[in-house]
């Protein structure tokens, strides 16, 4: 076991890890940040997506020890400072972009990375960007819609949500 320190959601956090400890396990087990989910073992599903130094990565395919000193952002760090939902998170709620919620943290982290690089992505760009995130509930319709809405673009017709 080695001591490991990284900045997670803006706070310096330390724990211990073995060489083989995955970042996803370190976040969930050691730091108690269970918002990062593990949905597969072959890096296909993307539920475990977090940002390391600003880049979206699959935390189930990164060794924790690789992140010594890194800036890590997880879903727990995505809301506004006052605790309200960010524009992207709010768009997911407004457009019913989630059902069971299990893939959602990865979807949000992945979509946030897209909007960082490409503030007004087309539908096709969104669909291609999300190819590393599997959702079993929504048929992706409302996820793509939410990302369009979060980037201030028109969305296809459908039911408009109320509070």
């Amino acid at each position, binding site marked *: 076991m080695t001591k490991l320190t990284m900045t997670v959601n803006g706070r310096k956090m330390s724990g211990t890890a073995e060489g083989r400890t995955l970042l996803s396990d370190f976040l969930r087990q050691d730091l108690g940040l269970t918002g990062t989910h593990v949905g597969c073992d072959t890096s296909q599903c993307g539920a475990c997506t977090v940002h390391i130094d600003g*880049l979206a990565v699959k935390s189930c*395919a990164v*060794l924790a020890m690789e992140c010594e000193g890194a800036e890590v952002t997880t879903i727990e760090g995505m809301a506004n400072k006052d605790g309200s939902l960010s524009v992207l998170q709010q768009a997911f709620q407004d457009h019913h972009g989630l059902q069971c919620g299990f893939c959602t943290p990865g979807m949000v982290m992945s979509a946030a990375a897209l909007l960082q690089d490409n503030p007004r992505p087309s539908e096709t760009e969104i669909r291609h960007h999300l190819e590393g995130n599997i959702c079993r509930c929504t048929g992706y319709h409302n996820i793509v819609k939410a990302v369009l809405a979060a980037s201030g673009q028109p969305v296809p017709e459908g039911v408009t949500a109320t509070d």
Partner: protein
Amino acid sequence: MYEFEFSRPTGMQEALAAVAGGAQPLSGGMTLLPVLKQRLNMPDAVVSLTAIPEMKGVKAEGKLLTIGAATPHAVVAREAAAHYPALAKLAGGIGDPMVRNRGTIGGSIANNDPSACYPSAVLASGATIRTNKRSINADQFFEGLFTTALEEGEIITAVQFPIPLRAAYVKFDQPASRFALTGVFVAQYSTGVRVAVTGASDNGVFRWTEAETALSTRFTPEALGGVSLSPAGMMRDLHGTPDYRAHLAGVLCRRAVAAAI
């Protein structure tokens, strides 16, 4: 995973010493970590190559594009675009965005997965694989399924691509893994055309010499009219038969030429 000792040196010499001592080199980990998770490999030590500055970067000098072995696909997709667009496009189509932020060119070609994208670019470009010990020509590098010319203790430091006149890569996705069900890279040089096919053969990436001959005469899709690939030795799995893959290679090759011109 089995437990191993982990190190992440910032200098090349330290990394090489670890590898010489038997450590398993780890680059982006997109292939190696799933393998370790399944306990299919049992290294005592793992050395990460991702913190060594000289192993990273995309550099164009004249007609040569040099890519550091630990350069992630996303960086190649961005930085090679102005110099070698077909290669940048290939890099930008590997896996998914998260994979592209971690996975590296060195890791991909050292693994030589028979369905990986990069080996086709390396082979079709006649690239040179530079290691800590020597330079290896692409034609000598890929030796078959998950097998390369790399020796014990040898790691890739960079890959040097001669920039072609025209080139394109067309990939047909395996829908589950997002690897190539079949992919064809076509590159035209003043000396002739090179064609490499990935995802199709039981023996990994290969050069399709018949197509090369036809295209070296005339670089058009129509030039491939009478050319076809034999299904013998092609892969059979859930996603395609040998017949289908051989056929697909022809279709993709024509499409790659069309995209290049």
